[in-house]
Each structure stands twice: as structure tokens, then as C-alpha cells.
């Protein structure tokens, strides 16, 4: 096998794992857990390996032609700086979530089915990231979305089914918008390959297609990434899922299906204009402020975290919407950081639920003495999300705010600071009501959660503490390559087509 043959493995491994778990899990006890552990570890290893493979590739891009068909006739898979950045983020979180769910999912029946859906979701996300074909992107997006609809309803309680139904309706509406957008682009350019599409759009005159398609994609991917005012489904769907899945949904799914696809299409295919960037920045600031205000009044721990996901996605979109090198760097860095600390927070909320049997802030209290590891990791994640130095959230938020000031958007910078202060306020509430204070009588006998769950949260907490080191000059290439791809804009077409012709 050549080194480039690892690219399709990002789709093959989770797909094979999904169907092996459902097949073997029925006959051999605990086989599904072994399969999922090996598969997610392999995916993490391969994505890190792909990062180093990219360093030696000419033009920092790798193109894999499926079935040997040359683009634009066949489907190709593209790994560039942005894809590999997302791959590492997704597979890192997926690995820790998989390890966590080995213990956590003992509360539920039918673990093999859970792992089947989990791997399908990972397969969909990896597929969206590596594909270089617009319709292929839609197919993988649907795989990931449909697996997540089923996973939200995994507990099959009335509340969970309702949330899943709502999520499925909103998700299908979003998919329909995206699908119509792709159909218009296909009828206009007669190609589905993203690089070829960008090449044709660059010279073909058009009056109404691009703005129309832009609005469709903005609605579709806006719904997928839950930007205000498209956010209504998220605070229901994310808390209803089992905690590891909440961590996946908030940590990486909305970023991969929403933010990554939005970036890829707007910056690399259609080409970012002043108008789109203004809209993105406005949506970002609106999400940031509206969601954090709504989060303040929540008493359900996971619901509070879900509102914060919307708010933090606002920071990411604001940073990327600025369109300057510093802004995009801050946005992407915040995307990575948010994946880490938000999945850590959701996993901690799962630990609290696992041990105490409730996640209502009014019923918990004083758990810090009984669950020291959970309490400490939660404190780290809370400080990271609130942007307190030296945790990773501080650096990315600081970069975004500086980038706003640099470009003259003082108002947006002030909004980002206010959002951060309100985030701090609502996480102080979490600390006070869950981990500090008096222990309630009926919670006196709870114990710390099992080892597999502790392992995941501790590792994620370590990444939170050390995350800021990614800005060191020797490690900057991870972020800088991703930023370079976004800033390259529509010249993406030439780079991909040239790499594919070799």
C-alpha cells in the first residue's frame, strides 16, 4: 500500500466497525467494545499520521482518486490543511468519547446498536471532511445526521423521542435547503466536483444563481450549525441524547456539518464576498449574546451546556467571518478548543448523572467532596470556556477579540467580552450548585465514576490546560495550514486539480 492509500481509510474503518459491531456484538459478548476501541484508536492514529504525511506532500495537499477515476469525472478525496485539522479534532474527541461510553453505556440496553450508530456518525463526519465532491458531501452529511437523530432518541423516553422528532424535522429541512442549493449549482456548472465547480464559477457570468444558492446554503448550514435564529432544535436535542452523544453532537457534529461545510463552500467554492462575511459576523455575534443570556436562566445542567454550545459557535463564526488571517486563526483555534472543553463538560455532566441520577441543578450540591476528579476537571473546563488564562479558551477568545479590534469592529469586540463574562457567570452557577455547598441527604452514598470515564475526562482536561501551546511557533503549522487553505479562497480549485492530474 502506498502512503496516500490511508485517505479512504477514514471512511472505511468506521463503516466496517459499524457493521462488524452490529454483527459480532450479537454473538460474542463485549466484542463490540473491543472493535470500537480499536477502530477509534486507529482513526486517531491515522489522522495524526495524515498530518505528518501532509508536511512532506508537494503543495501541502493530497488528492485520492476513488476507483482511479480522474476528477471531475470521478469522486476524489482531498486532504489539505483544513481537512486534516478537522480530522484530528473529530477523531480525537471521538476516541475519548468512545472510551467514556465503554462504561457509561452500561446503563442502557443494546450496547452494540449504540456503537453501530456511533461509528456511522463518525463515518459521516470523516466523510464530509475528506470528500472533494459536493454531492458526496451531502451523502455523508445525511449519514451523520440520520445516525444522530437515532442516537438522540436512544433512551426512548417520551421526552427524548420528542426531541429527536423535532431534531429530525429541522435537520431534514436543513438538508432540503442544502440539496436544492447543490442542485442549482449542478445545473449551472454541470459538475459536482468541488474544485471543478470553483473553476467554472470563477469565469462563468451569472446574475442571480450565486446569491440565491448562497442564501440556501446559509439557511441549510446555519440550521446544521445552530446559529441564532436557526437554533431552536439544539437545546432540546443535545440534552436528550446520552451524555457521550451530547459530547459528540455539541463537540464536533455541529462544527463538521455546519461550520466546516459552510467554510468550505463559501470560501473555497463560491468565494467569500464582503456581504457573506458581514452576515456571518452578524449571525456570530447574535448567537454569542442571545444564547448566553438564555443559558443563564437554565436549571438543567445539560440544557445549560447546550445553550453555551450555540454561544461558543458564535465566537467561531465571528472569528472566521472577519476574514483576516488573525480572525480566521482565532476562529479555528476556538473551534478546536471548544470541541475539547465542551465535550469534557458534557462528559462531566454525564458523570454527575451517572453517579447522582439527576442533572437538575436544584437537586445536586456538594458533589465536589464525593467526586473529586469530576469536580476538578469540570472546574478546568469551566475556566477554559469562560476564557480565563492560562487555559486554551483564553487564547482563542483573546485572538478573536484582538482581530475584531484590528479590523475596527470595536462593537463586536465588546460583545465578545460581554459574552465571555456572562459565560463565566453561568459556569459559576454550575460550580456553586453542583460541586460546592452542602451535600443533600439522598446523595450521601454516591461514588466516583469508573476508570474508563475518568480516563477520558482527565485526558481532555490535560488538553484544555496545554491547548494554548498550539500557538508556539514549532506547533503553529497545525493551525497555520488550515488558515492558509481558507485564505487561499477559490484558488483552491487550481491547487486540487493540479494535484489530481499527477
Amino acid at each position, binding site marked *: 500500500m502506498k502512503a496516500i*492509500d490511508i485517505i479512504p481509510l477514514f471512511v*472505511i474503518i468506521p*463503516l466496517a466497525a459499524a*457493521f*462488524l459491531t452490529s*454483527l459480532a456484538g450479537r454473538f460474542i459478548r463485549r466484542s463490540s467494545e473491543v472493535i470500537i476501541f480499536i477502530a477509534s484508536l486507529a482513526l486517531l492514529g491515522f489522522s495524526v499520521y495524515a498530518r505528518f504525511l501532509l508536511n512532506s506532500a508537494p503543495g501541502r495537499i493530497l488528492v485520492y482518486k*476513488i476507483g*482511479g477515476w480522474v476528477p471531475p469525472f470521478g469522486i476524489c478525496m482531498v486532504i489539505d490543511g483544513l481537512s486534516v485539522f478537522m480530522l484530528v479534532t473529530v477523531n480525537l474527541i471521538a476516541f475519548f468519547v468512545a472510551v467514556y461510553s465503554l462504561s457509561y453505556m452500561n446503563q442502557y440496553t443494546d450496547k452494540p446498536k449504540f456503537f453501530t450508530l456511533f461509528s456511522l456518525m463518525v463515518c459521516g463526519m470523516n466523510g464530509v471532511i475528506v470528500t472533494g465532491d459536493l454531492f458526496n458531501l451531502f451523502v455523508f452529511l445525511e449519514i451523520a445526521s440520520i445516525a444522530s437523530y437515532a442516537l438522540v432518541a436512544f433512551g426512548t423516553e417520551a421526552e427524548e423521542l420528542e426531541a429527536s422528532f423535532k431534531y429530525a424535522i429541522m435537520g431534514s429541512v436543513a438538508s432540503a435547503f442544502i440539496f436544492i442549493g447543490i442542485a442549482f449549482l449542478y445545473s449551472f456548472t454541470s459538475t459536482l466536483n468541488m474544485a471543478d465547480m470553483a473553476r467554472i464559477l470563477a469565469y462563468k457570468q451569472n446574475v442571480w444563481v450565486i446569491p440565491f444558492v448562497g442564501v440556501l446554503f446559509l439557511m441549510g448550514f446555519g440550521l446544521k450549525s445552530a446559529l441564532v435564529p436557526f437554533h431552536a432544535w439544539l437545546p432540546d436535542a443535545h440534552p436528550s441524547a446520552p451524555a457521550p452523544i451530547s459530547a459528540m453532537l455539541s463537540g464536533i457534529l455541529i462544527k463538521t456539518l455546519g461550520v466546516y461545510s459552510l467554510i468550505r463552500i463559501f470560501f473555497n467554492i463560491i468565494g467569500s464576498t464582503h456581504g457573506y462575511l458581514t452576515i456571518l459576523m452578524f449571525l456570530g455575534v447574535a448567537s454569542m449574546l442571545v444564547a448566553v443570556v438564555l443559558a443563564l436562566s437554565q436549571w438543567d445542567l445539560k440544557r445549560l451546556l447546550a445553550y453555551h454550545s450555540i454561544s461558543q459557535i458564535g465566537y467561531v463564526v465571528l472569528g472566521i467571518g472577519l476574514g483576516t488571517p488573525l480572525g480566521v486563526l482565532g476562529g479555528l483555534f476556538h473551534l478546536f478548543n471548544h470541541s475539547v472543553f465542551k465535550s469534557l463538560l458534557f462528559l462531566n455532566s454525564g458523570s454527575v448523572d451517572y453517579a447522582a441520577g439527576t442533572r437538575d441543578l436544584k437537586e445536586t450540591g456538594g458533589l465536589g467532596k464525593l467526586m473529586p476528579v469530576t469536580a476538578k476537571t469540570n472546574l478546568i473546563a469551566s475556566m477554559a470556556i469562560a476564557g480565563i488564562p492560562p487555559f486554551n479558551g483564553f487564547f482563542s477568545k483573546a485572538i478573536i477579540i484582538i482581530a475584531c479590534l484590528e479590523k475596527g469592529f470595536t462593537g463586536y469586540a465588546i460583545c465578545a467580552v460581554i459574552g465571555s463574562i456572562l459565560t463565566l457567570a453561568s459556569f459559576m452557577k454550575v460550580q456553586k450548585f453542583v460541586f460546592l455547598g452542602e451535600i443533600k441527604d439522598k446523595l450521601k452514598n454516591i461514588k466516583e465514576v469508573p476508570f474508563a470515564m475518568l480516563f477520558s475526562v482527565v485526558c481532555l482536561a490535560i488538553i484544555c490546560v496545554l491547548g494554548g501551546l498550539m500557538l508556539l511557533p514549532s506547533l503553529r503549522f497545525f493551525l497555520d495550514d488550515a488558515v492558509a487553505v481558507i485564505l487561499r479562497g477559490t484558488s483552491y480549485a487550481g491547487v486540487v486539480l493540479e494535484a489530481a492530474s499527477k
Partner: protein
Amino acid sequence: MINNSKTGMTLIVKTITRLTVGLILLFGIYIILHGHVSPGGGFAGGVIVALSFVHLMLAFGKDVAVAKVSKNMASNLESIGAMMFLLIALSGFLGGSFFLNVLAKGSPFDLLSAGTIPLSNIAIGIKVGVGLFAIFLALVVLERAK
């Protein structure tokens, strides 16, 4: 079991079903096998295969159909269909590329031609046929707890 089933619809429906259900199944298999030379293919044929079992269930009640394909067998076969498709795709690595058609192509419009395409159609046919039947079964076998 078909002959002395008390559940299901009237005698007329049962008699007609007995005559047609085999033909529907056969037609589904025909569509799957000829997917690469005529319109249709794994998905369309799989749907027709699933419909033949759904037809059986509608006419004779769920017990008759479940006796032919149980819920466990349906979900096992579904995973096997998906794995088959993935293995066919992986066989492309023998020739150097994922999804490469490694078998001999033959001459156009022969039944035995087009390399791995008919095999992929069979895998898709199994996956879609059993998958759709399993969805229908899930709607039927789940009942309100008494």
C-alpha cells in the same frame, strides 16, 4: 402455516397472494441481477424483494412473514449486505485503488459482464431488501405493553 392461518385477510386476498408472491420475489431478483444491463439495480430490486415479504405479511398476518425472515435474521443479513459491499469496494485495493473494478469487464450487455458491478448490486439488494423489511417489521412487532 400459510394454508391454515387464521389471521390475515379474506380467502380471496390469500389465494391471489399465494399465486403472486413468488412472482414478485422472482421479479425483484431479476431486477437485481440485471441491474448493470437494464434499468433498475440493487436498490430498486431490493425494494421489490422487500415488498414481496410485506405483501405476505399483509395477507397472512405477521407470524407467517416472521417465520420466513425473523427480526434477528433481518438485522444480521442487513449487516452482512453492508459488509459485502464494503469488501467489494476494498477488493479494489488489489488493483491499486479503493473501489477499483478489478474483475474482467466482459462484453457489454452480457449478463456476466461489468466486473464487480453485479456483485455490488447483489450486496445492495440484500441490504436494501432486508433493511426495508426490517423497518416494516419494527412498525408491526412493537406493541403497546398490556
